[in-house]
């Protein structure tokens, strides 16, 4: 009896400690959220308390001053197009190089993996030269191409692993039915890659949405900033007006946090699967 009670007590205590730990861990986020609803004076007076006179003024001001709508638009355009491009070019290339059992494809596989250890910062400086030669500097297309090169290895790696687990007999029966290679890939194989595509979307989407260094130098400001470089730039101008800083921070994180809360499981498994690069 007492052993059982002892155990129950211990699990109870363990659970309390787990919750306490979680709350402490989330405390910085509480600070950011609660202070974004306070006026500047209220933050100075009571930085830790819940807002007594909650206001949306900070959000309105941040939304206009930092031009958040246009930052969202730029980030969304770049993220969606880069992710779509990466998925398209790497899934079909992965299909061919993993299915054909010849020397060229073995070479192509090894060649694709060269980039997996290369951090994007290594290719940033030389890419600026390449991009200006192609007249793609300071344009969203330039950043799109840069991401295409930088993350191709990672997506190829994800897709080759996954395609290996799809039986070749599927290709063969489609072939007998008269489908062409491109037809087999897009009609039969690509739909089966959904779990892998989901992983790639989450992983690449998050890296690209949150990226800071590359858009700062490749995109600059001439054709609109991304959300990260945009708020970095805007906040630099307010220095210590924390109410506006927090409103900016919340607006920048809002879409990705909502997405995470809706798809927690996919996020966790996606990020774990992509851990090979990081």
């Amino acid at each position, binding site marked *: 009896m007492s052993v059982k009670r002892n155990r129950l007590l211990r699990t109870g205590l363990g659970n309390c400690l787990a919750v306490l730990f979680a709350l402490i861990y989330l405390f910085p986020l509480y600070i950011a959220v609660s202070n974004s609803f306070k006026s500047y004076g209220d933050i100075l007076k009571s930085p830790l308390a819940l807002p007594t006179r909650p206001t949306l003024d900070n959000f309105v001001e941040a939304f206009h001053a930092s031009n958040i709508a246009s930052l969202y638009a730029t980030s969304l355009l770049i993220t969606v197009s880069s992710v779509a491009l990466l998925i398209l070019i790497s899934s079909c290339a992965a299909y061919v190089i993993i299915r054909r059992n010849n020397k060229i494809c073995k070479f192509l596989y090894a060649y694709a993996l060269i*980039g997996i250890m290369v951090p994007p910062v290594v290719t940033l400086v*030389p890419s600026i030269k*390449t991009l200006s030669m192609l007249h793609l500097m300071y344009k969203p297309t330039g950043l799109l191409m840069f991401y295409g090169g930088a993350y191709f290895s990672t997506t190829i790696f994800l897709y080759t692993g996954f395609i290996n687990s799809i039986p070749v007999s599927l290709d063969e029966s489609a*072939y007998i039915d008269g489908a062409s290679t491109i037809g087999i890939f897009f009609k039969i194989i690509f739909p089966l890659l959904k779990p892998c595509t989901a992983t790639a979307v989450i992983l690449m989407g998050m890296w690209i949405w949150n990226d800071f260094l590359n858009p700062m130098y490749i995109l600059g400001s001439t054709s609109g900033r991304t959300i*990260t470089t945009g708020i970095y730039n805007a*906040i630099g101008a307010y220095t210590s007006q924390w109410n506006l800083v927090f409103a900016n921070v919340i607006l920048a994180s809002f879409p990705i946090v909502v997405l995470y809360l809706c798809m927690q499981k996919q996020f966790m498994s996606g*990020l774990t699967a992509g851990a090979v690069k990081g």
Partner: protein
Amino acid sequence: MKHNKLHDFLLVAPGYLIYTIFMIIPLGMCFFYSFTNWDGISKNYKMIGLKNFLRLFADADFYNALKVTLIITVITVLIYNVLGVLLAVLLNRKSRACAFAKSAVFVPTVLSSVVVAFIWSYIMQTDGGVINTVLGVFGIAPYDFYATPLRTIVMISVIIAWNGLGLFLVIYVATLNTIPTELMEAAEVDGASGVQRFFKITLPLMMPGITINSILSMAGGLKQYDHVKVITGGGPGGATQTITLLSVEKAFEYNRRGYSSAIILVLFVMIVIVSAIQLSITKRREVKY
């Protein structure tokens, strides 16, 4: 089954074209530039052999950046792996509280490093920051996190670890779930204590996860840029600059692209060597059952 060669080519070519132009060629250019004195603007530059590297190894800024980078790497690697393993083991129970704690640790990983850096720079302020307000309640004098470069670097390392811990925790939890429960039960029947079970069974069987996580955390620490850039900008006077920060500054503010390429090449070689060593050491320690 006969394959249509043209179709194969069409499926493979676009990806490899983009990859070659925007990854392989720039990678080669990085090697090439590191042996030149190119300034990023003029058409003329000279091959200067190993001069960039010789200059690099006599450059006090480089050694300081190396030191800063290594301190950040050591602290974050320790937090990620020691705290990561401990939390995974402690939270590996079927209860709502533990599931909540795991997702709580994961939330910051989806946030942008810029966002995280701004939130924490408010929290760590000397005047009116959250930490010092709380300390003040207990009558403790405010702690200046910016008093010395070392303090600032340690603070930034902790912030980075807070941002990234979730990913490492999830990987450790996944590895932990691959350990068969019968092993634990058998050890319990044989009278092994909790600590004994942890060191003799759990830890050796978690080696695959430890391999991945230590490589990941080392590589991540070595290329650190964002948090430092936002919190201190590398200052005061370059005292908290990391290698990546130094190379970006040399490339874009001093227009010394050749020298900057040499710096980044050293970093790249470090990442490759660290990963290779790590892989061979931890692979040997992995246990089969």
